[in-house]
């Protein structure tokens, strides 16, 4: 599973990578996930499939599907002008 983060002036950046079936990796991913949310990010998992595609917003690592290939972090939405 890869954690990507959108960054102004750069595009996405790989911030973490690991195998959720490996305990150490999973703990590291959980910690990174929490840090990103604490930093004001939203987390989304793009869901691929036939026809229409969607994304799933995850509020905790437990909500991320175990077989997800990537989680994309992006700045939290705010009301614009």
């Amino acid at each position, binding site marked *: 599973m890869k954690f990507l983060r959108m960054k*102004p002036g750069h*595009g996405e950046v790989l911030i973490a990578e690991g195998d959720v079936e490996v305990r150490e990796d999973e703990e590291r991913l959980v910690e990174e996930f929490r840090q990103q949310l604490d930093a004001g990010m939203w987390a989304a998992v793009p869901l691929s499939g036939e026809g229409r595609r969607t994304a799933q917003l995850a509020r905790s690592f437990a909500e991320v599907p175990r077989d997800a290939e990537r989680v994309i972090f992006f700045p939290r*939405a705010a*009301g614009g002008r």
Partner: protein
Amino acid sequence: MLLALAATALVAIALLWETTAPRLVEAFERHRARRKLVVAPDYDPGRERRAEARARQLLKSCVNDEEWAMYRDLGLIRVWGTQSERPGQHDAAAGTPYAYLIYPHKPILAYLPQTGRLLNEYCVAFPDETRPYGSARLPDSDDVLAKWMALTGDERRLIGTANLHLPGRQLDPRQVRRDLWRLRQWERARTARPAARSETPPAAR
């Protein structure tokens, strides 16, 4: 004569003082605080283009072929609304199919595809306050992808976060209607293409 020259000089000094005084005061304050001027990083004209190229690849990998082609050709993505009652509507027309147009760094626009009626503008932004490269603004395609993920992932949450405005506040309704017309033409051409291919005799292929 001398008096006139003196008066003119006084006026000139007064006008110059108005423009130079703030700079002098700031320079003095900086000197007093022993502050150093912060040197801005060198501007890299290719950075934004590289960032946008990366963002486009990420967007392409997340949305389906039709949505990607729509963005590539028209510069927008249409997302169908999924709530049984469209946002802000609790009348008998509830249940009418509605959709959103996503533009980069512009409000999300809700409309009725059947009639082309524009419903609302939802002003939403994704500012990165860490400003890693001096800007809080995501590349265009990242902004579109962020809106797309938030809309398809949790439409109600995103719409609840956005500032609601009537159509026409930021997006020119004439331009939007033109975009909707372009979208219809684009869809017509796209659906006609496979049919035309299937009608072509094998020998002509």
